[in-house]
């Protein structure tokens, strides 16, 4: 995975929008949030609430720590393994305990936040608007998708969710192979 993807996108609209664009233009981050939202939604409203509480918070903590360290690392292999595993869990439609879900969400948020923080420079103005943008986008996407999944009971929609999980897992697996080959 090119290092370019880890750096902050410049939209020209300021730090907040740069942060939002960063999530939507970074496939691995987007797939992780999508996968976690599908997984949390499969667990019902409680899963959705837990995701909305833990993911933005852990992402923000990871970002803050990463920005302090300032290393130029993407940890591509580790992040790919993580979102692939989340995809497998969604495809299998497993019922997880609250503890396991909380650990998965918080661990993922911390790791991906840390990777974001490594390569996102602190704002010269001192206002962490880019951080706010990333975390807001993570929260918004999480709540929209997990709520939709939790609220919809139709069989075909549940199948579509599982197919989406299998696509995330398959893309992650092939990506892992390409990374290992490189």
């Amino acid at each position, binding site marked *: *995975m*090119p290092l370019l993807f880890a750096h902050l996108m410049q939209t020209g609209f300021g730090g907040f929008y740069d942060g939002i664009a960063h999530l939507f233009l970074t*496939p*691995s981050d987007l*797939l992780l949030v999508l996968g976690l939202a599908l997984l949390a939604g499969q667990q019902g409203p409680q899963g959705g609430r837990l995701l909305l509480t833990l993911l933005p918070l852990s992402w923000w903590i990871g970002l803050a720590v990463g920005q302090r360290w300032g290393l130029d690392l993407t940890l591509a292999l580790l992040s*790919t393994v993580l979102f692939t595993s989340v995809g*497998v869990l969604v*495809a299998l439609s497993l019922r997880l305990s609250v503890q396991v879900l909380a650990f998965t969400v918080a661990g993922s948020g911390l790791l991906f936040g840390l990777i974001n923080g490594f390569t996102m420079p602190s704002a010269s103005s001192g206002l962490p608007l880019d951080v706010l943008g990333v975390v807001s986008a993570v929260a918004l996407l999480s709540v929209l998708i997990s709520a939709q999944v939790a609220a919809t009971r139709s069989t075909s929609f549940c*199948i579509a969710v*599982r*197919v989406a*999980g*299998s*696509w995330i*897992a*398959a*893309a*992650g*697996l*092939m*990506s*892992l*192979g*390409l*990374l*290992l*080959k*490189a």
Partner: protein
Amino acid sequence: MRWRWLLLALLLSLLPSAALAHVPEGGAGSVMAGLLHPVTGIDHVVAMVAVGLWGAVLGAPAIWLLPVAFPMVMAFGGVMGLLDLPLPGVETGIALSALVLGVLVMLQQRLPLAVAGMLVGLFALFHGYAHGVELPEGADALLFSLAFVGATGLLHLVGIGLGEARRLAWGHRLLQVVGAVIAVVGVWSLAQVGGA
């Protein structure tokens, strides 16, 4: 007269290469390569469509179980191919997949779910392996993989859509014809493998 102009416009639209003045690079190039990779071999295309078709013939839960399991097993095969792990008889397996699935669709044969899953899983392994061996160097791994998996899934969807025609009066005959065509492609592929 107007319909002739419409026909001419449609024919001209079949010349997309005229618009491809620039070679796509970077992320866009990887997405394009990933989307096109599963549709560049006729044996792959018919087998992917046949998986969806046979899923529709088998009905629930196979109709959704096969499209959920296939991409993951195929990706596993892809990783094996990428890492040059040995898997004998890949080309024969791919040709057989078209032949066997084509015959199963043609006869509208319903096998037990476990047998169907294992059969399709085995074929997915062969297809994934072949794709893994042929994957282009320098592609953006994740964008390529996403596009590749998406294109494969869409081929399954085409098969499921075709398979749903069985609800119509002429649907069974259509499935027989499509299954026969897929089986013929399988025989042709087997002959190619034998001739090579």
